[in-house]
């Protein structure tokens, strides 16, 4: 009879209305500021620079090789190399970025910089509450604002951080083995002028 389809639809919405008091599955609203959705581990918003230890300047893993600057599709990373060197994550003296700006008003959070970075120096953060009314200052993050500790990285991406740490410790082990081997050959030759250590970086 006429109206039978509409009644079936109304029954459906009535069931949903009654169900919303009873079954949690039908009550999907998450009252954001008070109640939050469980953070999803693989989430990515904006990049950040990882540093080991406590001091962000010396512990920074980035060696300013500028691969991420070239590969970034919207071109929102700007790097300037430092003049002097400091030991990097594996302990080899490398350059470090004197200036590392990310313009989060352009960044499309596509994580290609993370994918192409050979030094595990840049990872994706999950912090998304960044709305601001300051156009020029608030949206251009410089080196200091970007740097976050490795512990923080373990906090937001535990499994990925563990894999990265394993790779780094293995790298350090290989580097130590190489330096000890170089030290032994160096000692044997003794009188010979030691060659300049191989240039690191790109």
């Amino acid at each position: 009879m006429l109206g039978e389809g509409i009644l079936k639809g109304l029954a459906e919405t009535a069931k949903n209305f009654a169900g919303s008091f009873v079954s949690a599955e039908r009550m999907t609203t998450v009252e954001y500021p008070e109640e939050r959705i469980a953070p999803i581990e693989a989430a990515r918003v904006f990049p950040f620079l990882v540093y080991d230890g406590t001091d962000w300047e010396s512990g920074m893993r980035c060696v300013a090789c500028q691969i991420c600057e070239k590969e970034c599709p919207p071109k929102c990373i700007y790097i300037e190399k430092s003049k002097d060197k400091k030991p990097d994550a594996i302990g080899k003296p490398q350059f470090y970025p004197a200036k590392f700006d990310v313009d989060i008003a352009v960044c499309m959070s596509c994580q290609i910089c993370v994918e192409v970075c050979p030094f595990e120096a840049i990872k994706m953060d999950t912090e998304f509450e960044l709305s601001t009314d300051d156009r020029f200052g608030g949206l251009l993050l410089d080196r200091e604002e970007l740097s976050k500790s490795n512990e923080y990285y373990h906090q937001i991406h535990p499994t990925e951080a563990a894999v990265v740490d394993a790779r780094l410790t293995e790298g350090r082990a290989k580097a130590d083995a190489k330096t000890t081997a170089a030290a032994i050959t160096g000692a044997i030759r003794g009188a010979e002028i030691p060659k300049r250590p191989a240039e690191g970086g790109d």
Partner: protein
Amino acid sequence: MEEGLKIELGKQGVFVTTIEELYNWGRRSSIWPMQFGLACCAIEMIATTMARYDLARFGAEVFRPSPRQADLMIISGTVTKKMAPQVVRLYNQMAEPKYVIAMGACAISGGPFKQGYNVLKGIDRYIPVDVHIPGCPPRPEALIQAFMTLQKKIDGQNLTGEGRPRHLDAEAQGEFPVPVQGEHDLEPSSNRLVWPLPMKTGIRD
């Protein structure tokens, strides 16, 4: 009216407020956004109004199609040079007091499409923007957090004196000229009153 006295009176059941607080509270609790989706951020804006994130809790789920009945314009998506005159005309046609949220990287600075020939590098070249939300697209929670930022900003406005908002002061700029589509680009390429030439032009040579 220091806070301590107000709280004490509140305990006794006497509620004291000023016209300014009442005025701001009234406006910020029911901001009606204009139905104005441009691109991907519009889908996240719609997702924000749906059941899971529920923008209605902030009094803003009424999306008014016409600019006459809207207080807030959420620019969600890329503003192209073909669409820019329409966006500025719609902003002009909105009734005062009106606010603008630039949602997403494209609305703030052209975002990933900044190198495009038909993309306006940020809507704040023509109209004043109140809150910027970085992200591409920003999560629905980020849009709700931007609403709370805007509400705090409205709370902070005072009725008279120097810091009063644009719609309460007669000399402030009421009209934002609509750019004309010329042969190669929009003329003028930006509205100097709204888009101050940044202290440094930022071109690195």
